C-alpha cells in the first residue's frame, strides 16, 4: 500500500513491507516528539514572554520525578526501536537454506554477476520472483555497495572479503541498482537494473543466455589449471585435505578450534592458506594472492560447494546445517589474521 504513496520507492521484495512498517513507526515517533517540543517551545515563549524589562523568571530548579520520567520514557521507546530494528535485521540478513546463489563482483565502475549455471551479466541482474536469492559479493578494487532501494537492502563489496546479502523479489518488474559506497570518478554511473521475472520467464531467460559452463565447471577447470588438484585429491591420500563434503561442514583446525567452512573460509584458505590450517596437514600450500581473480575465487567457491554433496571423505567431520543456515549478515574476515 505504501508503495502507492509518493516518497516511497517501489516495494519489490518480501523485506520491503517490513522495512517500511518500521520506518513509518520511526517517522511517527519523530513527528510526535518534534511536534511536542516545538509546540511547548512556542506556547511557553508566547505565554511567558517578558512583560517588563526587569522581569525575571520563576525560581524553579528542577524536579527529580520529571527527570526520571523523561529519562525512562525515551529509554523504553528506544528499547522498542532497538528490538524491532534488531529482529528485522536478523530476519533480513539470514538467508533461507534454499536460496538461489548468484556471485557478484564490484569493479570500477560496473557490477558483474554470474549465475551458478554460468550466465554472466553486467550492470544487470535477472532473478525469479518468489525465490530467495543470495548474492555472494566480492570486490576487485575498492569498496562498493550493492543497493537495490526497492528491496530495501544493501551490502558493501569489500576487497579481501566475501560478503552476502539476500532478498526475495515479490513482484515482477525492473528495479534500480546503485553503487552506494563512493568508489571514485564514475561512482554515480555504477548503476544498473535488477529485473525480477516470473519463474517461467526466468527459466526462459536463463536458457537464452550464453553459458560457457556452470560456475562449478569453470571452477573445476581453474582448480586443475592452478594445480590445486595435485594436492587436494579426491581420496585421503593427497598432501592436502580432500574437499569432498567439506563445504558447510564443521572443520577441525590445527589449533583445535572448529570452524564452519563457508564462502569466507574458502576465500581465506585460497588467499591466506596458513591462517586456519586443517588439523593433520602440514602448512605446505602457497598463497594464491594475486594469482586468482575475484571471479575465479567465486568459481572456485562454487566448485568447492558442488563437492559438498559428494560423500564425505574420512575425517572431514559432521556436516553442519546448509551453508546459508547460519546467520551470515556480513561474513568473517578473510585475510587479516
Amino acid at each position, binding site marked *: 500500500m505504501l508503495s502507492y504513496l*509518493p516518497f*516511497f*520507492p517501489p516495494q519489490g521484495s518480501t523485506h520491503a513491507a517490513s*522495512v517500511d512498517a*518500521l520506518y513509518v513507526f*520511526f517517522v511517527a515517533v*519523530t513527528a510526535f*516528539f518534534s511536534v511536542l*517540543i516545538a509546540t*511547548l517551545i512556542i506556547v511557553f515563549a508566547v505565554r*511567558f*514572554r517578558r*512583560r517588563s524589562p*526587569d*522581569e525575571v*523568571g520563576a*525560581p*524553579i*530548579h*528542577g524536579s527529580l520525578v*520529571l*527527570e526520571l520520567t*523523561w*529519562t525512562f520514557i525515551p*529509554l523504553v521507546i*528506544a528499547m522498542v*526501536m*532497538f528490538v*524491532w*530494528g*534488531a529482529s*528485522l*535485521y536478523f530476519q533480513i*540478513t539470514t538467508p533461507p537454506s534454499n536460496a538461489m546463489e548468484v556471485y557478484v563482483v564490484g569493479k570500477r565502475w560496473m557490477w558483474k554477476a554470474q549465475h551458478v549455471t554460468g550466465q554472466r551479466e553486467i550492470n544487470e541482474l535477472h532473478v525469479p520472483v518468489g525465490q530467495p536469492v543470495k548474492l555472494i559479493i566480492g570486490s576487485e*578494487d575498492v*569498496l562498493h*555497495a550493492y*543497493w537495490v*532501494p526497492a528491496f*530495501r*537492502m544493501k*551490502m558493501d563489496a569489500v*576487497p*579481501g572479503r566475501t560478503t552476502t546479502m539476500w532478498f526475495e523479489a515479490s513482484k515482477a518488474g525492473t528495479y534500480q541498482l*546503485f*553503487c*552506494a*559506497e*563512493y*568508489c*571514485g570518478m*564514475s*561512482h*554515480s554511473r555504477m548503476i544498473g537494473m535488477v529485473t525480477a521475472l516470473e519463474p517461467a520467464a526466468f527459466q526462459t531467460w536463463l536458457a537464452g543466455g550464453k553459458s560457457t559452463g556452470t560456475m562449478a565447471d569453470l571452477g573445476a577447470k581453474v582448480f586443475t589449471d592452478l594445480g590445486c588438484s595435485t594436492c587436494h585429491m579426491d581420496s585421503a591420500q593427497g598432501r592436502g585435505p580432500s574437499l569432498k563434503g567439506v563445504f558447510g561442514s564443521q572443520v577441525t583446525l590445527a589449533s583445535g578450534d572448529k570452524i564452519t567452512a563457508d564462502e569466507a573460509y574458502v576465500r581465506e584458505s585460497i*588467499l591466506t592458506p596458513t591462517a586456519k590450517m586443517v588439523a593433520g596437514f602440514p602448512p605446505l600450500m602457497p598463497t594464491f*594472492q594475486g594469482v586468482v581473480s575475484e571471479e575465479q575465487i567465486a568459481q572456485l567457491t562454487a566448485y568447492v560447494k558442488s563437492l559438498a554433496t559428494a560423500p564425505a571423505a574420512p575425517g572431514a567431520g559432521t556436516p553442519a546445517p546448509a551453508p546459508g543456515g547460519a*546467520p551470515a*549478515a*556480513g561474513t568473517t574476515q578473510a*585475510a587479516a589474521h
Partner: protein
Amino acid sequence: MEASIAKPTNYLNATHGAASWFLTKDHKRIALLYLISVSIFFLMGGVFASLIRLELLTPAGDFVSSETYNKFFTMHGVMMVFFFLIPSIPATLGNFLVPMMIGAKDLAFPRINLLSWYIYLVGGLMAVSAMVMGGVDTGWTFYTPYSTAVSNTHVVMTGVGIFIAGFSSILTGFNFIVTIHTMRAPGMTWMRLPLFIWAHYAASLIMIMGTPVIAVTLLMVVLERVLHFGFFDPTRGGDPVLYQHLFWFYSHPAVYIMVLPGMGVISELIAGFSRKPVFGYSFVAVSSLGIAFVGFLVWGHHMFTSSQSIYAGLIFSFLSYLVAIPSAIKVFNWTATLYKGSISWESPMLYAMGFIGLFTIGGLTGLFLSAIGLDLHLHDGYFVVAHFHYVMVGGTLLAYLGGLHFWWPKITGKLYYEPFAKVSAVIVFVGFNLTFFPQFILGYMGMPRRYHQYPEIDGWQVLNVLSTAGASILALGVILPAFYLTYSWFKGPPAGPNPWGVTGLEWETASPPPTANFEETPIVTRPPYAFTNEDAHV
C-alpha cells in the same frame, strides 16, 4: 557605567600593531584570530556546498565533470568538518569565555593557546594548498583502499593538513581542562560552573582522547600511500575495514566535539533569555559527560553494511540507543526551563529555539540509522546526509551563530542592529529546513550520497530543486550577519557591561573586557543563573 574622560583601556585597545595581535597571549585576542580564520574556512566550505547544490539542480551531470564534483563534496566536507565545525565554538567562543566564565585572567597556558592557533593555521594552509593544487577526491572520510591505492589526487597533503590541525584541537582541549581544574575563582565550585563550561569540559575530554586516533589513522593512510605499508591492503594481509574502525573511533566522538559546545551555548541562551536557572542543572551537566563517554562506544554504527559480524552490529545498535538518552534529557530540560520564564524574543534566543527544534529532529533521525534493519536501506543515502546536517548545521551552526550574537556585545563592546539579526535568524531557519528536509525523503526513496548525476526518477529532481533553493536562502541568512556584525563593530552603539540583563561573571566586567578580564578577582557566592534571591540559596 559612569562617564569618564579617558577612554577605558580594554583588550582591544591596550596595545597596537600587528605584532600585538600575532604574538598575543591574550585568550580574547586569540579567540578573535580564530574567529576570523574559521570564518574564512566556513566561507570556503560554503562555496563548495553551493557548487554541489548547483550541480544537483538537474539529474544530468552537466555543470562540472565527475572528477570536479567529487572534489567539491570532498573539500566541502574537509573544510567544514575539520577546519570549521570542530574548532568553531570551542576555539572562538570557548577561548574567549572559558576563562571569563570561571573568573580567571586567562587560560592556564596562554603560549600554548597561541601555538594552537598557529598549528591550526599551518594545517589549514596545507589543506588549502592541496585544494589549490588540484584538490582531493576521496570524500572527507578517506576510505581505504580508494584513498591509499587508487586516488591520484592530493590525499597526502590534505591528510597531513588535518593531522597537523588535530594537534591544535588536542592543545585547546588540554588547555581548557587544566584551566577549568585549576583556575576557577574563589567560590566557583564545580556545581556553580555555567553549563557552557561543563559542555566544554566534556568536549575537551573527547579532543584529547579521540584526536590522537585520527592523527594516527591519517598517518597510516599516508604511510600506506607513500611507502605501501599494507595496513589496509588485503593482498598484504591488511584489511580496508580496519581503517573504518579507526576512522570512526575518532570521527563519531568528533560529532560530540562539534555538538557538545553548541549544547553549552544553548544552555546559556535559554537560561539568559528566560531569566531562570536551567531546569535540572545537574542532569544537564552530567549528561554532557555521559555523552562524551558513551560516544566513544558507538563507532560501529557507521559500519552496519561493512560486513561486521551480526553480534557486533547488535551491540553497536544497542549502545547507539543509549547515547540518545542524555541528548533527550537535555532537550526536555531546555524546554522545561522556558516554563514560567521571562522570555524575550531576541535574536540569540531565536537561534536557541531553532536549535532545540532542529537538534530534536537531527537526534531522532539518528535513531532510524541505529536500527540496523532500517540502516541497511538508508545507509550511504541522502537520509544520512540530511540527518547529520540537522545535527551539524541545525545544531552546531545555529548554536555558533546564536552564541556569536549573544556574546558579540561582550566581545566588541558594541550593539548590532537587532531587527537585522532577527530577520537573518528566521532566514537561516527557513533556508535550512528547505535545504535539508527534502533530503530525508530523497534518501528513503533511494538516492545515494556522493552522486554527481542521478537517474530521472519521479520526484527526485523536484526534491533536489527545493533543496538547492533552500541552500540559496540559507546562504543569504549566514552572509547577512557578516555585514551587520562587522558594521556594528565600527558604528554600533556601546553595549555596556550587561546589555541582556543576564547572569554570569563575563557580564560583570566591562564590554569589551580589560586585558586581565576583571578589575579584581571575582568572588563567587551564588550558583549560575541566580536571577532571584531564591535562586541563590540552592
